[in-house]
């Protein structure tokens, strides 16, 4: 659609030019409203003033990757008709406690602006934002058409806020609460959905811990005939799950509760039959505390599974292998490393369609634990699953040769996130740095968008990245590199780089300042525990007024060192809500 309109505009034929000159805005808006990709829309808005105008009137969804890159006022001024907002707040390292509390990213100011300018707002998706109960109550009371709330990795609210949403949002279709720092005081929020409420299609409260009223849940599930996604929490037993399944055979995504319960023969048969009756389930998660005994109840349901999330279930290799045999259509798999290499071998043998694998560590902090997965498991998967393009792999050892084999088998990686859990660990067979491993990745995987490196790495890794990773957008670096040259190679070499996060590396001022213009084409840069000084940050801030340069100070550290630096481009100027520990230069 877009290219057609563009071609018309560029034609040298005067008659056609006359046509486009009187091309009514309304028609243009209709055409543009069919564009959904944010990047396409950004491009379109740059063509000319007419198109900018048409685009801004027709845009209904907006995605803001850094909530401080723009202000609510600027947003609402430019786009008058927004129905759906996605906002991301804190730097990603806040997930790992590297960002001070009260850092910011509070949603409230945005909600106030939206209440005035977007009273018909329908969808809100938040990631790493600070959300209070007051904000949730405000949201529930000010947007009568509100349909979709998704909170991922947010914090600051409690189940009281959820109660407000359940009580007041009469048109709610989706409530998706994932991995948040939520104060879970009680499960009574679920009972707040009125008996007249039937519109729910997605309900995910898997990561809450309080018990909910199971009668209320059953009634809710019964009357919401369009419910497609149900992910319950640990407090729901197998028997209760069975009753829910019987009431919602149309489910497509299921997150079970606790899979641990002493079931006698009859309830087990009922459970199995309930699962068999749900013929549309393609995504399965939960399975808290799964006992191998009851997993066979799932076997028939697994035939059509495309996404299996076992990342909260500590299955051993044997029982996992038995389960995976039944999942030939699997495309995405998340597991704990308790399944070990043997479990991953079973994946390689049984899941030829696999595209995404995430292996999480069951016990990341205990050095005495010597189990988990090694390079062998990863290699085994790569031989069996040639379509693999997304991997997140936590392991305790790796070799250059293994990674080279892996990318040879799977050259289509778009996301390669390898975490060798001991910082600075070399190839355990050759004792060499892991440079060649990541060299192989960037040389072979031309579509690579996201890379996380680990292990012992010299500047050579970064030379490789700068030279070959031409599509790289996100790079995460920890405990790596030898000198400023490493970071410089990346800044000079990766044209599409948008997010760079670095911790505990010997990169200093020269490296920081070599990226001056680059940072304006990026979303953000994070550097912590490196060798950057306050003076360098001040120089950077002075020379680049369109960047916000924020330094987070640690208590009692040297005044001249910039312990944690967060730099991002913005049209909104320096922010005014930073806590005292964050200095804006």
């Amino acid at each position, binding site marked *: 659609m877009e290219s057609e309109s563009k071609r018309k505009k560029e034609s040298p034929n005067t008659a056609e030019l006359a046509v486009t000159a009187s091309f009514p805005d309304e028609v243009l808006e209709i055409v543009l409203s069919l564009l959904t990709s944010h990047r396409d829309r950004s491009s379109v808005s740059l063509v000319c003033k007419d198109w900018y105008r048409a685009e801004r009137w027709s845009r209904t969804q907006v995605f803001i990757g850094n909530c401080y890159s723009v202000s609510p006022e600027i947003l609402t001024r430019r786009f008058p008709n927004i129905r759906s907002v996605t906002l991301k707040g804190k730097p990603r*390292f806040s*997930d*790992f*406690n*590297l960002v001070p509390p009260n850092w910011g990213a509070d949603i409230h100011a945005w909600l106030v602006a939206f209440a005035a300018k977007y009273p018909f707002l329908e969808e809100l998706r938040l990631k790493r934002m600070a959300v209070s109960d007051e904000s949730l109550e405000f949201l529930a009371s000010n947007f009568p058409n509100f349909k979709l709330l998704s909170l991922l*990795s947010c914090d600051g609210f409690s189940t009281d806020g959820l109660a407000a949403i359940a009580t007041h949002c009469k048109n709610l279709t989706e409530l998706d609460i994932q*991995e*948040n*720092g939520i104060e879970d005081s009680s499960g009574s929020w679920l009972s707040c959905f009125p008996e007249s409420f039937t519109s729910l299609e997605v309900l995910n409260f898997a*990561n809450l811990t309080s018990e909910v009223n199971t009668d209320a849940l059953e009634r809710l599930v019964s009357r919401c005939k369009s419910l497609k996604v149900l992910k319950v929490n640990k407090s729901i*037993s197998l028997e209760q799950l069975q009753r829910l399944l019987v009431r919602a055979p149309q489910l497509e995504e299921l997150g079970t509760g606790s899979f*641990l*319960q*002493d079931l006698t023969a009859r309830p087990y048969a009922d459970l199995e039959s309930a699962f068999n009756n749900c013929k549309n389930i393609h995504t399965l998660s939960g399975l808290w*505390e799964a*006992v*191998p005994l009851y997993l066979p109840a799932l076997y028939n349901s697994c035939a059509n599974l495309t996404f299996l999330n076992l*990342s*909260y*279930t*500590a299955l*051993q290799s*044997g029982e996992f292998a038995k389960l995976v045999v039944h999942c030939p259509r699997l495309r995405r798999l998340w597991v*704990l490393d308790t399944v070990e290499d043997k479990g991953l071998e079973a994946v390689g043998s049984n899941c030829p369609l696999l595209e995404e694998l995430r292996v*999480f*560590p*069951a*016990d*990341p*902090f*205990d*050095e*005495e*634990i*010597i*189990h988990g997965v090694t390079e062998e498991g990863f290699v085994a998967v790569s031989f069996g699953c040639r379509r693999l393009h997304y991997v997140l792999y*936590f392991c305790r050892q790796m070799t250059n040769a293994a990674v080279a084999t892996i990318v040879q088998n799977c050259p289509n990686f778009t996301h390669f996130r390898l*975490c060798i*859990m*001991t*910082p*600075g*660990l*070399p190839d355990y067979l050759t004792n060499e740095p892991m440079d060649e491993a990541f060299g192989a990745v960037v040389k072979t995987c031309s579509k690579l968008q996201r890379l996380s490196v680990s292990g*012992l790495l010299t500047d050579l890794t970064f030379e490789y990245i700068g030279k070959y990773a031409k599509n790289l957008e996100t790079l*995460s670096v*920890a*405990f*790596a590199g*030898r000198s400023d040259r490493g970071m410089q190679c990346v800044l000079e070499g990766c044209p599409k780089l948008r997010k760079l996060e670095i*911790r*505990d590396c*010997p990169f200093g001022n020269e490296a920081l300042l070599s990226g001056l213009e680059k940072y304006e084409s990026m979303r953000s840069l994070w550097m912590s*525990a490196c060798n950057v000084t306050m003076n360098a940050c001040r120089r950077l801030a002075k020379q680049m007024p369109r960047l916000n340069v924020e330094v987070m100070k*640690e*208590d*009692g*550290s*040297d005044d001249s*060192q910039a312990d944690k630096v967060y730099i991002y481009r913005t049209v909104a100027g320096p922010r005014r809500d930073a806590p005292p520990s964050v200095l804006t230069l």
Partner: protein
Amino acid sequence: MEALGLNMGFEETELRLGLPGNRVRSEGEGSRKRGFSETVDLKLNLSSKDTSEKVKSFQKEKHPLPRATDPPAKPPAKTQVVGWPPVRSFRKNMLGVVQKSSGEESDMAGGNNAAFVKVSMDGAPYLRKVDLRMYNTYKDLYDALGKMFSSFTIGNCGSQGMKDFMNESKLMDLLNGSDYVPTYEDKDGDWMLVGDVPWGMFVESCKRLRIVKGTEAIGLAPRAMEKCKNRR
């Protein structure tokens, strides 16, 4: 004693890795960031209520693993590093799947060695069986028992003497006060109060569980205390 005195004097001149102005740490480990151990405790936010685990991590800080890697990024021992490995705090807290009892490496290697014990509750018409290896803390066990005997509630199993341990580890937060007390028969055939010993030790020594009415458990406490003293 003399050696100590000598060391005290030289401390200030000792060469260390780290930024100028760093406070000298008594552990003797030059580190880039001050207050690492404090930050670890606060920020790693290890929510396991098992105090022995915290003790273990402190001890590790005093003796970090030696590294043969090149400078300048001196990689510290894992437990010292804030936010590493990069696992979301939320995920860390939700994973109650790790068995922390000592000397269990062989168990892990051997796979699932089940530890089924019979569970009886006074007044209940039937017994149940639980696999103690499915749980990692007393709280997990109580939750499971609570579900099994859902028409009863498990009582506050601290006599006055046990309260300190209970309060510290907050195991009793979710349990209502009532008349029932969990006890167990150990390898020696003695009936003990559940909750006295570290979880791992309990799993190894527990032969069967009995949830008794509170009145009968009162006499249990002094004997249990005595036995624990003998153990230590």
